[in-house]
């Protein structure tokens, strides 16, 4: 689905969402309240300027109160890779955006991610992965790094990596693999109105971080939950 189709399905009565230089912001009427939208469209890389624009919007929503839910729509590139961004402290900018979303969630504003295109690396962590529940639409393509780059770094032949990727969700790019690790909670049905599907996700929000449990259930991260629990057990027993 395109962003315009998503917004049309979310807000049949209209909305104020705009896109400027790939950055998405605005809101629309939703379940008797409103739904705030922030995000990145058009495979745009997320640099420090964009991260601060999005964070400003999130903090404004928190400041306004009212428990308005925040939907983070994502079709981005990775973080913007540049000397200027790193000189200006991109790590602080991206972490600040993630913290703003985590603060919003703690402050009673449900945060929902919706990945409908690409996203990767730092941009993915600072946006979609900083929400309480992350949904995807079919065709979404989250990744950490594309296979040719993985081949360069790991010095393994690309054809062997491609073969391994079929049976090993833990390293291969793609939506199915991110579902298996628990990072993506649910895949939505583009044939049904998104309005109701997002409303149901908000209604079903659980406390805590469900991702390692989902990763264990789905087999994409077989050990993470058990390891984290074992650390907690040993910490308790002193």
């Amino acid at each position, binding site marked *: 689905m395109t962003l315009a189709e998503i917004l049309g399905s979310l807000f049949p009565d209209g909305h104020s969402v705009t896109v400027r230089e790939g950055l998405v912001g605005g809101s629309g009427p939703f379940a008797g309240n409103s739904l705030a939208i922030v995000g990145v469209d058009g495979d745009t890389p997320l640099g420090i300027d964009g991260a601060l624009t999005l964070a400003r919007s999130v903090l404004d929503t928190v400041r306004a109160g009212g428990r308005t839910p925040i939907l983070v729509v994502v079709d981005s590139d990775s973080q913007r890779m540049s000397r200027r961004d790193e000189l200006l402290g*991109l790590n602080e900018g991206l972490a600040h955006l993630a913290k703003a979303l985590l603060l919003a969630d703690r402050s009673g504003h449900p945060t929902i991610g919706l990945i409908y295109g690409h996203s990767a*690396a730092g941009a993915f962590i600072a946006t979609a992965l900083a929400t309480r529940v992350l949904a995807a639409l079919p065709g979404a393509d989250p990744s950490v*790094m594309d296979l040719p780059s993985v081949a360069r770094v790991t010095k393994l032949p690309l054809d062997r990596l491609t073969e391994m990727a079929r049976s090993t969700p833990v390293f291969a790019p793609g939506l199915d693999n991110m579902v298996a690790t628990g990072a993506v909670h649910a895949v939505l049905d583009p044939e049904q109105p998104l309005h109701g599907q997002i409303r149901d996700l908000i209604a079903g929000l659980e406390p805590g971080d469900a991702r390692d449990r989902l990763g264990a259930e789905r087999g994409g991260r077989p050990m*993470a939950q058990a390891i984290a629990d074992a650390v907690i057990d040993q910490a308790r027993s002193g």
Partner: protein
Amino acid sequence: MAGERAASTDPDALSWYEATARQRVVALADPGSFREFLPPTERRMSPHLPLFDLPRAFDDGIVVGRATLDGSPILIAAQEGRFMGGAFGEVHGAKLVGLLRAALELTPRAVLILFDTGGVRLQEANAGETAIAETMRAIVDVRAAGIPVIGLIGGRAGCYGGGGLIAGTCSRLAVSEGGRISVSGPEVIETNKGAEEFDSRDRALVWRTMGGKHRRLTGGADAFCADTVSAFRRAALDLIGRAPSFDLETLEAEQARLEARVARFGDCRDATDVWRRLGVNDPETVPAMDTDAFTATVARVREADHDAR
């Protein structure tokens, strides 16, 4: 055992950069106080590295446990930069996540994270990336409970990729000259954007752009340490005592701080241009300054100290 050797090492003499993760932890904490969770004897190893014919580590490249610092209970994690570049794999990341979740129950005086990481371990990329997101949420939970989370950065792998984002989530950061904090590493920028954008072989450029001195001068880190374990210990104790709270006011202040930084330095090409605008008289001399001279320089820079993190 390596731990016992390290325990007898003089923290004033032990180089943070050269030390192993376990040496750092043992020498940083009060003598004899460190107790490791999931120690190497339990052999909690990566289930994924054998697929790539890569060797595994019994601790998956991270040491986690509890200790005391000046008598106060702390939880502590230390990444081992010599194993897979300290990168986040499934087990590695889950140990850190578990430690942070345990902090909510144990309410220690602080959680210390000794970063030494290139970011996500590509052989386990999806697990590593998800663990970084879980870590950031857990840090926010711990901070919101009033427990400072302090990052210490001075290892040979630096603090790159998702590690840089986790660092930016901490309450306070201490960094040494050898510590580098960045999202995209020099090689990554060069590979994707060309050597004209970033020449990764220009080590002086790397240190100026991502190194501890630049981060300290611009307020990206809150303390600058000499490269010894005792210097990091003193910095940790100081930072624990003045950690900002995690709330809307802090994040509004951080928003203003970062917006002001971009407005003021957004057209700078090089770190020396930034330092000049910060009021450093002779910015070309910064890379060669010793710790005392640099500390005196930082004291004259208003942007270096803040509670906006």
